[in-house]
């Protein structure tokens, strides 16, 4: 019964496709994106329903075997008026999961918001469950509330607030299942910065988090990016935990492209973790560390890329509370990585990666070989990967050994609005002797557009790009034909 209910997620797409008065725009050929780009002239609806079934078997620490086979499904939906006037849109993404062996259906609304913007899009108000890119390493913040963004010439002003959400996972322990998560905190923040400047990006943001009625975090983050002569980009960030009066991160990096096809970069970072002021974690002081990294990548030809990078991390000397030094822990570690990627044709690539780690924390050498293909305009996707690595560390001898794994993935689009795929992984290690995972996915997706004056438009999907996007070419004359209107 649960399975049937879950599969209901998959129904909307083909049902909508069968209705008249709209045109199904099919799968976008753009890699990794399923939104079909339209022409900005109408009201459109886009949706995707997907299902992913995974079987996982893990040999546990107590030598038992734990298997789970959750079925995840989701539905994404967007309806908008993209004509060049006041913009109104609604967008939502929901998903649900059930373990077919144990039950325990979990439903979740990832996003659901309404966007309103005036003509010219110089302002935007978003209400509902949404994401904002926040300060420092906090990355995203997902919350229920409101946000606004004003783009006043080159001045950007952002403000947001609401109840903060944490991604909830579906956890199974024996016969029990539960949702993880930190519950709801209040969060609010604002930022000022620049927008639309060619070579300069600046943002100053302040974010507060209220937990259990108390101010738990107050983070200030300043970002400055500067492009110089089209050759050099400088990135910098300063993040401060104002409540704990701690410099959380200071970062500066420089990337240069002195000649076509060559990238050279260097970075410095100081990092010290900080925790909520209401948390006991804050009592246990932590050491900052400094990292310096460098990287070089070259694209000598359209079909070939290669890169190498390395860095050093410096840690404080390990000294116990009794002032006993422990030099065995080391104060520095080094890392070096290199890779080469060959793309003989646009739809095929082969990549080889190598990595070495030495110093504090142990020694490691690793090699990975992968290949991927997306022939027939991406309608078939195949990927294989193999990894092998050796790890050794005197202070954690129980983790020493050879680690490895292989992965095979195949997916295809028999018709533009359906994608089916499967993936298998096998992993070996001295720690968990085996781990096997197989996954099957089915995606339905579709875009619908109501065309002005064409209510009888067909409910068909394009196997090839729409005619108004086909490139124009000449045959036997001078001039051009066709249009991107």
């Amino acid at each position, binding site marked *: 019964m649960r399975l049937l209910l879950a599969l209901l997620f998959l129904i909307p797409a083909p049902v909508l496709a069968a209705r008249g008065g709209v045109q199904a725009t099919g799968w976008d050929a753009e890699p990794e994106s399923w939104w079909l780009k339209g022409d900005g002239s109408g009201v459109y609806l886009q949706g995707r329903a997907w299902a992913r079934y995974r079987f996982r078997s893990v040999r546990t620490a107590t030598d038992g075997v734990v298997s789970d086979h959750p079925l995840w499904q989701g539905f994404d939906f967007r309806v908008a008026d993209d004509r060049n006037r006041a913009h109104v849109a609604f967008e939502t993404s929901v*998903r649900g999961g059930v373990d077919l062996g144990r039950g325990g259906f979990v439903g979740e609304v990832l996003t659901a918001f309404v966007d309103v913007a005036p003509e010219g899009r110089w302002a935007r108000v978003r209400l509902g469950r949404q994401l904002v890119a926040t300060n420092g390493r906090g990355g995203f913040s997902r919350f229920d509330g409101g946000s606004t963004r004003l783009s006043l010439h080159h001045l950007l002003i952002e403000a947001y607030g609401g109840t903060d959400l944490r991604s909830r996972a579906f956890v199974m322990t024996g016969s029990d299942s539960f949702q993880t998560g930190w519950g709801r905190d209040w969060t609010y923040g604002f930022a000022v910065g620049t927008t639309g400047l060619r070579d300069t990006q600046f943002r100053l943001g302040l974010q507060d988090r209220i937990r259990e009625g108390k101010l738990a975090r107050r983070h200030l983050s300043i970002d400055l990016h500067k492009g110089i002569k089209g050759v050099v980009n400088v990135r910098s960030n300063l993040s401060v935990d104002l409540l704990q009066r701690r410099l959380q991160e200071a970062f500066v990096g420089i990337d240069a492209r002195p000649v076509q096809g060559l990238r050279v970069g*260097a970075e410095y970072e100081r990092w010290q973790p900080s925790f909520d002021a209401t948390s006991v974690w804050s009592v246990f002081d932590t050491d900052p560390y400094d990292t310096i990294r460098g990287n070089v990548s070259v694209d000598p030809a359209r079909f070939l890329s290669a890169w190498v990078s390395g860095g050093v991390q410096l840690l404080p000397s390990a000294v116990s509370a009794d002032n006993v030094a422990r030099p065995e822990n080391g104060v520095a570690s080094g890392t070096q990585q290199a890779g080469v990627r060959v793309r003989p044709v646009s739809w095929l690539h082969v990549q080889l990666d190598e990595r070495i780690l030495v110093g504090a924390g142990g020694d490691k050498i690793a090699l990975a070989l992968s290949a991927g293909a997306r022939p027939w305009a991406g309608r078939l996707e195949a990927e294989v990967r193999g990894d092998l690595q050796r790890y050794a560390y005197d202070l954690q001898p129980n983790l020493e050994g050879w680690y490895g794994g292989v992965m095979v993935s195949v997916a295809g689009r028999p018709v533009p609005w359906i994608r089916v795929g499967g993936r298998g992984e096998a992993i070996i290690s001295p720690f968990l002797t085996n781990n096997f995972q197989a996954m099957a996915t089915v995606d339905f997706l579709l875009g619908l557009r109501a065309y002005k004056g064409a209510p009888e438009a067909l409910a068909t999907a394009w196997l090839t790009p729409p005619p108004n996007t086909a490139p124009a070419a000449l045959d036997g004359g001078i001039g051009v034909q066709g249009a991107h209107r």
Partner: protein
Amino acid sequence: MRRLWVLGLLLGLAGVALAAPDEPKQERSLVLMPEQSIPLNFDHKRHLDQGLQCIVCHSAANDSTEATDSLIPNHTQCGLCHRMEQPNAAEMFPKAACSTCHSGFEGQPSQIGPPPHYVVTEGPRPPPVHIPPARITFSHSKHLAQGVPCLQCHEGVDETQLATREHLPTMRTCLECHTGGEAPSECTTCHLQGDGGRLRTSFEGEVIQPKGRFRPDDHGDPRWLKIHQSAARVDTNSCESCHATQFCLNCHDGVVEDTRLHPADWVLTHGLEAQRRTVDCFACHEVQADCTSCHTAAEVVPGAFPGVRGEAEATSRFHPPGWAGVPGEIPPADHHSFQARRALETCEACHSVDLCNECHSVLVNPHPDSYGTEGNWRFGQGDGTMCLQCHRPGDPNLSRLGR
């Protein structure tokens, strides 16, 4: 000493930035400006040296509002000077034989219709000219009305013979004037627009993407997946020019691990990386959601390992024997405190603070000797909520601190 080399590094970075050479010759996107095939003889320099103005031949530019409009002169324009109908077209000035323009094509004047259109009526045809339209939006009419000289955008045409895609303007050329003032600088000013006002980035399977010319957004950088957070944070508007929110969720809230970032054996080796912090786990992952769920399923959790809390005969498969130490004894090198101080957030990945309190509230004082003294900023911090995690109200230690 450390400050010195950090200072040196910063000065070095500044020096490199200041000494940066001018931008290398910028290649035009083959997606936006596809390859052309122009089997013609033509000398722009010679025509301009004769005193001709661009608009004489490219008269359609006056009324052109789209990049897809054909502005290439046809027989009618050429025929204003090159009298193709004349029987001695090959000898007269200016020459007007077929091969004068169509390289290697020996047609006959009889194939050409009368002026002014000079329609080709019969016989073999010259090799085709293939000039795909630029996939941008552009109005020659507007620019001419503003008095923009042709050579400002089509730089070098006056010094060349055949004009090709190399004489089309680059994005940097456009942005010389389109700074957001009188000339708008929105992406959609030039780029084709798609649904929701976002840019159209895909053209028959070929994709356009930023190359880092104006900001650190080089999507072709091998590190892009790992470093994109910074660019996304500082200029979200730029990201949203092409990407919808859903695009972020595909990875950030995906239920499928992305093997582009993590190798296939990642599930077993990520702990090593997390401890080494060669990657920033928390740029993408939530500790409780992403870490705890899998660890619980695999029983790599507290309580699953006998001996991790100080038993002498520890048999933990993850933490080494002696990890917890023995209260009162000098901690060994593999004592958890050293790892904790270096990477406390990795402890948080598995453990709640209750585990710490089991020992540190009874056997081992977590506070350093200097705690609570003047100058220790933690003293008196906040409203004491953190203190009450361990100390009960009325605790004399709290009273001493004024709590």
